């Protein structure tokens, strides 16, 4: 391919020179000039190099673009996972009326928090205990404390250092749901979990 095209280019240039020599003009350069041939060859070489450079540049840009995309994709995935972990960590734990023991159906939620705390050694959390409006206002402060302590004890008994878990009680002072029926009450009898520190890039367990 390449050799054929070279011959063609050479033939054309000769023909051009020949035709320019026709008519009343005396032929000035009857034979191909060695210099012009070299120039043509140089031009040819240059164009080839330019094409090659352009192709290289495009390839490089494409590679960079792909790399950037890949990086962005992985960052998004990382943050998606961090968000997911955060949601799991914040999932509330609910209690029976006037009780502070961890229900068996709530242990799974606490087990997930144990795993998250283990996967993120810098993470520190706060557990807030809450009550519904039915009990005594002041007694509910003690009950809310007991509920927060119950979750903390569960986490500690599963290997989490107690110093990483703060507790507080809000009694019935901060209901999650307004309302005066069991649906509202059962949602308000809860522990809430929030990040104190070390929660910026949570790793999936």
């Amino acid at each position, binding site marked *: 391919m390449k050799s054929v095209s070279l011959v063609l280019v050479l033939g054309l240039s000769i023909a051009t020179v020949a035709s320019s020599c026709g008519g009343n003009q005396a032929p000035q350069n009857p034979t191909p000039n060695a210099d012009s041939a070299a120039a043509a060859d140089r031009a040819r070489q240059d164009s080839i190099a330019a094409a090659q450079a352009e192709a290289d540049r495009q390839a490089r840009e494409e590679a960079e673009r792909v790399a950037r995309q890949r990086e962005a994709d992985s960052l998004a995935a990382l943050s998606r996972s961090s968000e997911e972990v955060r949601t799991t960590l914040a999932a509330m734990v609910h209690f029976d009326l006037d009780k502070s023991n961890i229900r068996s159906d709530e242990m799974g939620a606490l087990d997930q928090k144990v795993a998250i705390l283990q996967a993120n050694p810098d993470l520190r959390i*706060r557990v807030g205990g809450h009550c519904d409006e039915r009990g*005594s*206002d*002041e*007694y509910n402060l003690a009950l809310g404390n*007991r509920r927060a302590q119950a979750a903390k004890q569960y986490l500690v008994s599963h290997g989490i250092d107690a110093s990483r878990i703060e507790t*507080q009680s809000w*009694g019935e*002072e901060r209901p999650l749901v307004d309302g005066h029926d069991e649906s509202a009450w059962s949602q308000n009898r809860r522990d809430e979990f929030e990040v104190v520190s070390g929660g910026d890039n949570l790793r999936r367990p």
Partner: protein
Amino acid sequence: MCCLCDSTSRGNRLTAQDTSAIDRGVRIGIDYRPGVRPGMVMLPRKGLDSVRTIVARDLDYSDRFEIITLPGGDSIRLATTAPSSSGSTTPRGSRRTPGTGGGSGGGAQAAMASLNYPLYQALGADFALDITAAGDTTVATLHDIAAAGVRRAVRTVLPPAGDPDFRQAVHRLADQLLQAALGTAGIGATRVLFVKDGKVYQIDQDGVDQKLVSSTNRQAMSPAWAADGHHFAYMEFQAGKGWLYYQDMATGKRTPVSTTGTALDFTPAFSPDGQTMAFSRATEEGTDLYTINIKSNCCLRRLTVGHFSDNLSPTFSPDGQRIAFVSTRPGLPQVYVMAADGTDQQLFAPFDYGVTGSSNAPEWSPDGQSVAFHRDVAGTLEVFVLDVRTRTVRQLTSVGRNEDPTWAPDSRHLAFVSDRSGYRQLWIIDLDTGRIRPLLQESGARLPAWSPRLSEAPSTTP
């Protein structure tokens, strides 16, 4: 309920029954005997309407008189101006001597002596109260109808109406008159602290003059009076902890209790001598009772070691020797008692294990004879009263949800929270007559604390 029957047969104390009826001069109670209480009539006069209104209401709210309302102006005028042959109506001349109290005037005035005693006697009055002005001085003359004479004339210079001290000064006047009539201290000059929307307010016992007394937007709970009536304590949420504050009522200056801020401290209570504050502290081990010397801010002392039970809501006996409190050691919260140093802890209010519901919020009566508290009855709360001597309990309320009782200084009135009208508000019940009246017709008020008798604010603070 068996406890109701017991108490009825026991004596005349705490025998009233709860109903949903709202006070409009109506008395309720199975043992109420209308003729027993002395009749009191207020003489209508021109001027001093606000003084007369406040005094009349205080005497009415004392629940110690039959308040006799005269039908109309003309008959009153007739009654007050008709000349009478005073002296001839009663042979007991000795009882005509005016009272000799500190506020006594120089004897019966000429105008007062003309009171038509037989007419008032016919109306059922035992006392007639005449409030008049003499220059800057307000003269309140208490007539003893049967003795046909002046029992006492109290002369006082009241602050002008609208002055912040006006109403309390009139309340104190009412208390002097009640003292003159019956020899008993009244509760006119008292206030109730309560919590609404996370803030502490005070209100006069007659339901007027509501005033904000807490100074932050942080959530406050559990106000408690010091025995001097010039200070109170309360709990406030701050940075996830419960802080106890000690506040001067007159200046509003507040001081955190020295040991607070490290944990959830709540339910403060003062010892009667004002030296000690007892409170609850929630920790990893549960909630336990502590005391601290509030005057010297020292000497934190732990009174209970709960071993993962809760001990809270302390209340001192009026002699300062004992503390009643709530403990969850039997499983559910119940009312316990101990010596003020934490020894000799024992059950106070009896209950049936596995049957009786949670019992909370005890408050020892100022006369030492009773402890009021609330108990879970079939899913709602009702106010109960424990007789300290016999250790028997009696259910006081039965209409709606009733909680957080607090004693008036006369140990016969209780303020409490009730939803009997459809929303939670503050009510007052008289245990002797069963009369119930709303203290505050506003939703959301709770955790009331009734003051001791309030003297005038101290003139100087050291």
